[in-house]
């Protein structure tokens, strides 16, 4: 029962004793926060100064920014960046899923292979790996498909097979897979054992247990980490500018190399990165909401 001062009086109007004294109407005075107000004032001043500087400092060259922000070269570069992110994420998480289940399997061999992969690909800096792939043709002149260690049926010249763009996607995906594997594994481990026991006791086929029972629940733990990875891959694509691929960062470098307007062009790239990261966060919110079905928090 809630503890209120007037409830008993209302419940028992006929009780004996002296009549209840009229409860005076009291005014509630909220506690004051002088320190908070000081912090707000200070922050507002700093923000205003910063905004003032953005507008009035001619160094930002907003005219140049506006001129280039939506030119075709830049838009095409944004497209390339998004492509690299999409393919890198899709392939990376696909391979990561396989690696995660290898590492969770009962086979010591599969476990070790997956753990070894994760070790190596987390250890090698992305840029070093990308340059390796870019120079694959130097290592393996041809790739033959056929009987292992035996005669080949098909063969490709690696120079034609691994163009700059596919080398970049390959590098990003293989790098991403190592991290994705650990994120997926963490998500699967977070699912209660009892869920698998219940699914097994019901005779649900193995793959369906994973797809329908385990993964949807694992997604709740996977998604926030996966979103971090996608966003960091999205920005990480700027590394492939070393391979002369026309993604966003490479393209603004090309433009400011020609016209010397470094700051406004860096702002072009920055604003695109910020806007698209915002869009990814919104997407994350909706995907997380989808997988929160039946959850209380």
């Amino acid at each position, binding site marked *: 029962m809630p503890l209120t001062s007037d409830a008993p009086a209302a419940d028992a109007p006929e009780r004996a004793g002296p009549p209840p004294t009229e409860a005076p109407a009291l005014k509630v005075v909220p506690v004051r926060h002088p320190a908070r107000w000081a912090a707000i004032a200070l922050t507002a001043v700093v923000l205003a100064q910063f905004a003032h500087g953005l507008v009035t400092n001619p160094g930002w060259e907003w005219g140049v920014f506006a001129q280039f922000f939506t030119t075709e070269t830049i838009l095409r570069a944004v497209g390339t960046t998004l492509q690299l992110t999409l393919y890198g994420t899709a392939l990376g998480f696909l391979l990561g899923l396989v690696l995660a289940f290898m590492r969770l399997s009962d086979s010591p061999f599969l476990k070790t292979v997956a753990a070894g992969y994760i070790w190596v690909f987390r250890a090698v800096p992305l840029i070093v790996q990308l340059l390796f792939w870019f120079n694959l043709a130097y290592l393996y002149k041809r790739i033959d498909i056929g009987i292992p260690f035996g005669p080949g049926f098909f063969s490709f010249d690696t120079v034609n097979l691994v163009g700059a763009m596919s080398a970049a996607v390959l590098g990003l995906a293989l790098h991403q897979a190592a991290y994705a594997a650990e994120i997926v594994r963490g998500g699967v481990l977070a699912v209660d054992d009892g869920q698998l*026991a*219940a699914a097994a*006791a*019901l*005779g*649900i086929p*193995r793959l369906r247990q994973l797809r329908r029972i385990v993964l949807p629940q694992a997604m709740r733990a996977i998604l926030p980490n996966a979103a971090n990875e996608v966003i960091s891959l999205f920005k990480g694509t700027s590394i492939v500018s070393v391979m002369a691929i026309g993604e966003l960062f490479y393209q603004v470098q090309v433009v400011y190399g020609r016209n010397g307007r470094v700051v406004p062009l860096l702002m072009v790239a920055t604003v695109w990165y910020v806007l698209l990261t915002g869009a990814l966060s919104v997407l994350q919110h909706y995907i997380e909401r989808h997988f929160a079905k039946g959850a209380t928090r």
Partner: protein
Amino acid sequence: MSAMVDIRSVTKSFGSVEVLRGIDLTVRTGEVTVVLGPSGSGKSTLLRTVNHLEKVDSGQVSVDGQLVGYRRSGDKLYELRERDILKQRTHIGFVFQNFHLFPHLTVLENITEAPVAALKRSRKDAEAAARRLLERVGLADKADAYPRQLSGGQQQRVAIARALALEPKLLLFDEPTSALDPELVGEVLDVIKDLAQQGTTMIVVTHEIGFAREVADTVVFMDDGRIVEQGPPSQILDAPRHERTRAFLSKVL
């Protein structure tokens, strides 16, 4: 009457700990067997060997005349493939102490999942059957709720409906009321009693002595991985022959 469950000389160890030390038990078709015993005596492990959630180290378990988890050829036992083990399990319903409902699926989806996935029933038929089962456990209005929106007693009744959806020959209950608040125990026991009256073959691990007295055909007392004694409830509960049984009963009664 024929034997629905036949457990012969079953042993099981976890590492160096011997959890089952030679269990022999027969459960006849249509009968209710209640298993009692102190915590850690191996009751859950025994129950889990009956549907091969736990592999035995030696001995064998048959359900309805079929070896569980193995195929016999001459004097050799061949381990079944996982696919065949999963198929055997569809004949054996299991109800867990902590329900283990699928939290991201609605009550209806929880119940239809196995009939659709394992028995290849059409979704429509499975849903119609699921609604009948929900009616039977008194939860017809909860079909679209998620498990976390239900009380523990309601969740356990859904879990029973989920097990029944496969129309199993045998039902196994592992302390179905131990995780419930006292006032919710009755509603779950009522559902199980109802099943018992309709002649469902069951093995029930429980500490509810009143329930055992009322519905059990056989009461089994386990301690330290062995069956200490078994018999009709009147004998085991009222006139136990072994000191350990007496000591246990004096604690739970």
